[in-house]
């Protein structure tokens, strides 16, 4: 019996799936210890043929009759999985040889949680490419942040690119929501539910895959549009995460473009501005004005995001009405007051026993500071408090201790 099932959804992925499967065939984990379930999202003979041609014994193929989106496909894949752990991988991800073994090691050390792997972007050439460079930097920063011991995991750390969890936990939560058709963010949404159920997140820095993704502006804008739609759906399902979504701006002055000056995006500007920016793109490309190009692309992304959000809500007015009632500030479900004089061991015990998302710290009668709640984040661990005491609250902590003795 296998230990882990790799679930890969694919939609017209005949050209992409080959290298992915080849990398899985070259794992350090023995082939009898894992299986791969590929879900063809919609009737797709060329991809099916490409897979069977590789003659890999550990691969199962499921065919969905109609294109129903990646969420549905992943749910089907997990339903068919035979192993106690599932790993979600994309069809354009190359696994490094140690990927599966690294995930397994982490699950053996900390059973019952989510293990988040990391990936880098593969580059076909070393020429400067603005979009790809931007994405590289963003992901590198993201994973560096996850690797910090005091990182407080939030729902936004749960991305389906390279993540594994016990199959039972996935099924308990009801799997991916299928409401996100044509929208992005079903992974974040599952992340919210997993965290709420108290499933811990871990980051495995040695579980590495390589993303063979060719960034292009149209794809980026499609993605931004899908994110806009997805965030509206997410705010509908889980209003408590609204404070940390970019959508929050809609409750204030409305969406803005931030540059040297702030430009408010009224509905009319939102229609006209992309046309103007698209018009300027060729010029910026021809003259190799890199900073301008970067700004244009960034602005187009913001416009696309809000376009998607308006589409999902109905109209700009509907969107504005919708966000009026949502919370703007993260609320604490459970906030405790703790006297640091009783020692960190007691705090570790308290935080281990109950899920706490904000702490008021004092030393004797002297206030030290507060660790604020974070929307859609895991409960506080003692590492978070220790880090805050060592950094942000260090001076207050010392002063309070001095004053108390």
């Amino acid at each position: 019996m296998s230990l882990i099932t790799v679930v890969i959804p694919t939609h017209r992925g005949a050209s992409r799936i080959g290298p992915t499967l080849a990398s899985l065939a070259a794992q350090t984990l023995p082939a009898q210890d894992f299986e791969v379930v590929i879900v063809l999202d919609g009737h797709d003979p060329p991809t099916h043929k490409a897979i069977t041609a590789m003659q890999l014994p550990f691969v199962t193929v499921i065919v969905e009759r109609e294109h129903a989106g990646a969420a549905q496909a992943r749910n089907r894949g997990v339903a068919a999985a035979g192993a106690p752990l599932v790993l979600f991988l994309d069809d354009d991800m190359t696994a490094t040889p140690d990927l599966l073994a690294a995930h397994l090691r982490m699950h053996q050390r900390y059973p019952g949680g989510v293990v988040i792997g990391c990936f880098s972007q593969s580059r076909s050439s070393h020429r400067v490419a603005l979009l790809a460079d931007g994405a590289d930097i963003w992901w590198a920063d993201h994973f560096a942040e996850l690797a910090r011991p005091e990182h407080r995991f939030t729902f936004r750390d749960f991305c389906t690119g390279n993540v594994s969890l016990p199959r039972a936990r996935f099924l308990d939560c009801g799997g991916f929501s299928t409401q996100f058709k044509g929208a992005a963010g079903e992974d974040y949404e599952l992340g919210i539910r997993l965290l709420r159920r108290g499933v811990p997140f871990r980051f495995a820095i040695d579980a590495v895959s390589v993303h063979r993704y060719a960034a292009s502006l149209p794809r980026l804008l499609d993605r931004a549009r899908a994110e806009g739609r997805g965030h509206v759906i997410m705010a509908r399902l889980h209003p408590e995460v609204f404070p940390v979504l970019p959508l929050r701006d809609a409750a204030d002055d409305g969406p803005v473009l931030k540059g040297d000056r702030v430009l408010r995006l009224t509905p009319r500007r939102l229609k006209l501005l992309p046309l103007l920016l698209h018009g300027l793109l060729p010029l910026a490309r021809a003259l190799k004005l890199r900073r301008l190009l970067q700004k244009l692309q960034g602005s187009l992304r913001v416009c696309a995001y809000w376009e998607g959000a308006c589409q999902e809500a109905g109209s700009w007015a509907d969107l504005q009405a919708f966000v009026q009632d949502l919370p703007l500030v993260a609320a604490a479900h459970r906030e405790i007051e703790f006297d640091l004089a009783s020692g960190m061991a007691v705090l570790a015990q308290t935080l281990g026993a109950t899920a706490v998302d904000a702490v008021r710290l004092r030393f004797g009668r002297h206030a030290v500071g507060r660790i604020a709640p974070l929307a859609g984040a895991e409960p506080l661990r003692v590492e978070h408090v220790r880090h805050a005491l060592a950094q942000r609250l260090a001076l207050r902590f010392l002063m309070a201790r001095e004053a108390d003795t």
Partner: protein
Amino acid sequence: MKTFIGSYELADSAPALWGAEGYERLLVLVKVHGRPLGVLRLTQNPARVVVERADLNRALLSQLGYLPSGVAATAPPSPEESPPLPPISVVVCTRDRPRSLRVCLASLAQLDYPDYEVVVVDNVSRTAETAEIVARTGFRYVREERPGLDWARNCGLRAARHDIIAYLDDDARADPLWLRGLAHGFAARHVMGVTGLILPAELETRAQHLFEIYGKDGMSKGFRARRWTPSRLPPLSLIQVHKVGVGANMAFRRQILEAIGAFDTALDVGTPSCGAGDLDILHRVLLAGGEIRYEPQALVWHRHRRDMSGLRRQLYNNGRSYGVFLLKRWRDGHVSRWQIARFVVRTWIPWLLARLVLAGLGKHRLPPGLIWAELSGATHSWWAYIATYRHDRRLRQRE
């Protein structure tokens, strides 16, 4: 721009005001034994990690002139001196604001008061969510099919069982001692109406911040109890009733509402008048000889509109509905028309114009667009007056 809103009790010994980290401005309500004493406005470095009691005490002395130790030493109100606590009906009128309503009703479930009931009037909501939320709280739910806040208020009056009816907005949240404050105002039998203190529940956006600037302190009428005794009132006070109170937090005795024919259904939001239902009822109560008191102990927290377009609409409505209110006074002739005309020409319009000019010169903290909205609302009030009564006649004929 973002302002933290909190409160601190002088009589207890919490070492700090928690949760203000990351904010540049603070608005802190100071309470003594649960009674509001005043608000402190502080600015701080947002990187500051904790606001200590000593900081608050210093501000208390410099801004309000109280020595904290002196105020805290006052004895808590003894049960004997507290006024009688008559049963009160709380009426909340709402339309399609399920999440705000949930917050509002949760605050009403936690009131510290021996005998009260809550009636939620659903004024033609489009979804069934309102009914579901009310069902979950166990409060009474009634539905008013004619659109208009004053229709809903009258419906609430009919459904209410007790003799004091307190009206609360669905975007407001009541302080636990709210009804005790109202009861304090109603202690004398001849008092017919009580209005209360309204503080902002949230100041997170530019629009909310500007709204606080707009009315000097938003909807707050200060921390000193006041009374309006009709026999001693100059005629001008009868038309400047916006100084008496706001509809978000007002209460009346049933006998006075029934005597003057309750609320004027042609007025307030949901009708072409876009407001003025509260001004009208306060005016008519005073006109009928009922005393009205303003009681700062009756505290509610109101959430202002968050978006700029919403604020612009609100100010437009203010101008428009105040005009409708004045036209109604002009028509019914209880206040001399000379007084009304003089008020409009010498006070109201010059006040609007002066602000517009100041804003145009950049000398006013409100952007000119907002003041223009109020002025244009005022110029539309002729049409609104005609339209709203025509609309009301049509609604009444339909029955």
